[in-house]
């Protein structure tokens, strides 16, 4: 009998995850046993948990370690990404505080699920093994299925959650099957071991390629790459708006980080396998950019338009995997951070523009917003211009960096398609701005006053977009260092 290896338990390395998990369980119990707990208290508890997790992640900079029998990797990249996720989660909690006042859904459970989905994202960013990766992805997906259907009375919400569930489960099956083949060929699920196996002269067996392809399909569903994107507009439209923002920002980020963990294994860049999947992602990226931008042109609902815009951004982002170099990876991380702020901000404006029972989600509803509520219109313009990639914003720098990485890797065709589709995208982003500033509103609409929490969420996202746009150096430096350590 073999002796059992005692796994090294380094709980300090997963402190952010533990804190977040504890916070979620505490909130669940408080909501359960304290009678008539105020919503503001739950929000504060959640924010305290997130902030604590944020700072405990901050203390982990510089730790480059594998823990828990190589299931968890704690490098600088995972810390940066954890912090980005936690900022996003805080913004979503603030938005939800406002939104849940409008539709009285069980707030405690909602926040608990939100925190668990964030936990899943943190697990993905720190996973060094396909098992942890799979568990993280599933934790994110399953909680988001529930959250999507949280407006129990709404037909749209119920239908969106069903669609999300069926396609999400379908894609998980592909993921598991892919992992099965990778496990069969490499005889391990550990990503580091797989990387070193592949870097040696290892058989490029067709089953291994099939395994990676299936895994790519599964993750492609989660981040809505082009042939697998059909669920996204429906789910984005039907889900409660803060959750739409979280699917668009957090879940997409998480999917990309999972791809980074799987497909940027450090040692395998020269393996013949790398060429195969670069080619595959090249096609996916091209298709996604074209379909996403073309779809956004014809939308009348603002949430659907933002959904297609988010699909298009998935195309730009996956360019980083095609260029497959350090610059690409750095650009990807930077653009993901920028994308998080601008997407969450845009959806926050969508929430603020509506009121109970009248959500005002058609693009024509935004006519005359500038006259009535100049602050909201200015915010929306900022986020949309950033999504389009106008110079003083974060979106511009991210795009330049991303396209630059593709050019550096000599994928000129893809870079040109990226630039062209970006130019096209100005049309539909600017259309909303034109509506807001140059048209008169069709009928009087008495809006809800802006609450403190929503104002906070809006200004923080705007601040994020501007700071990353004007002073990108701080984050750039952190990201560049973290990728070198990797």
């Amino acid at each position, binding site marked *: 009998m073999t002796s059992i290896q005692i796994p090294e338990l380094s709980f300090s390395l997963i402190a952010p995850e533990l804190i977040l998990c504890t916070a979620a369980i505490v909130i669940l119990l408080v909501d359960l046993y304290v009678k008539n707990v105020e919503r503001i208290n739950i929000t504060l508890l959640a924010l305290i948990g997130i902030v604590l997790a944020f700072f405990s992640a901050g203390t982990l900079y510089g730790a480059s370690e594998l823990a828990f029998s190589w299931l968890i990797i704690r490098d600088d990249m995972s810390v940066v990404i954890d912090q980005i996720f936690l900022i996003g989660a805080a913004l979503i909690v603030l938005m939800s505080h406002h939104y849940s006042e409008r539709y009285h859904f069980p707030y405690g459970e909602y926040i608990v699920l939100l925190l668990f989905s964030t936990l899943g994202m943190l697990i993905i960013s720190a996973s060094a093994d396909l098992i942890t990766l799979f568990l993280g992805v599933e934790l994110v997906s*399953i909680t988001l299925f529930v959250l999507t259907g949280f407006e129990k009375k709404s037909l749209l919400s119920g239908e969106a959650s*069903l669609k999300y569930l069926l396609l999400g489960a379908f894609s998980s099956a592909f993921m598991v099957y892919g992992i099965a083949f990778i496990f069969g060929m490499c*005889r391990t699920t550990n990503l580091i071991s797989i990387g070193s196996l592949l870097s040696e002269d290892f058989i490029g067996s067709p089953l291994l390629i099939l395994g990676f392809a299936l895994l790519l399909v599964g993750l492609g569903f989660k981040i809505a790459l082009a042939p697998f994107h059909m669920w996204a507009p429906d789910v984005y439209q039907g889900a409660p708006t803060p959750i739409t923002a979280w699917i668009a920002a957090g879940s997409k980020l998480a999917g990309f980080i999972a791809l980074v963990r799987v497909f940027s294994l450090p040692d395998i860049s020269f393996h013949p396998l790398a060429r195969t999947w670069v080619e595959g992602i090249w096609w996916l990226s091209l298709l996604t950019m074209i379909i996403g931008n073309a779809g956004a042109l014809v939308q009348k609902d603002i949430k659907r338009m933002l959904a297609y815009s988010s699909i298009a951004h998935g195309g730009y982002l996956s360019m980083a995997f095609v260029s497959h170099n350090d610059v690409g990876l750095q650009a990807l991380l930077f653009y993901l951070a920028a994308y998080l702020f601008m997407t969450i901000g845009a959806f926050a404006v969508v929430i603020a523009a509506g009121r109970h029972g009248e959500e005002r989600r058609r693009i024509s509803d935004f006519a005359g917003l500038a006259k009535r509520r100049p602050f909201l219109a200015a915010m929306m313009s900022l986020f949309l211009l950033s999504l389009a990639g106008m110079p003083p914003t974060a979106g511009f720098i991210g795009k330049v960096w991303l396209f630059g990485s593709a050019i550096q890797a000599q994928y000129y065709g893809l870079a040109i398609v990226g630039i062209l589709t970006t130019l096209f995208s100005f049309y539909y982003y600017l259309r909303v701005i034109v509506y807001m500033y140059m048209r008169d509103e069709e009928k009087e609409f008495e809006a809800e006053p802006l609450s403190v929490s929503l104002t906070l969420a809006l200004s923080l996202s705007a601040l994020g977009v501007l700071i990353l746009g004007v002073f990108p150096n701080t984050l750039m430096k952190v990201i560049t260092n973290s990728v070198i350590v990797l």
Partner: protein
Amino acid sequence: MISLNHYLILSAVLFSVGALGVLLRRNALIILMSVELMLNAANLAIVAFARYPFFREVGLAAEDLAVAGNGMVFVFLVMTVAAAEVGVGLAIIINLYRQRQTINIEIANLLQG
């Protein structure tokens, strides 16, 4: 003697049956069952891979036991995740049924561009 290939072929067949079920059927419950079939097909493949140390000619080494353990633990976790997914799925389907008295996904089709 049943070899690894037999298991892999069976799992491929089951996976395809499940995938076809998802694509062709219109009843949400049956689609969920088909997804379960796909997950279990994948599980079968993992267990088969874990069981057959096909890179080695003879016998089982300690390493092979570790590989088997790795695969089996993964299968346990996949089963747990699948159960959670079904739990959530059934709840969502019940909710949809309460709203519309049908679980046919073609009738439930309000969301369109």
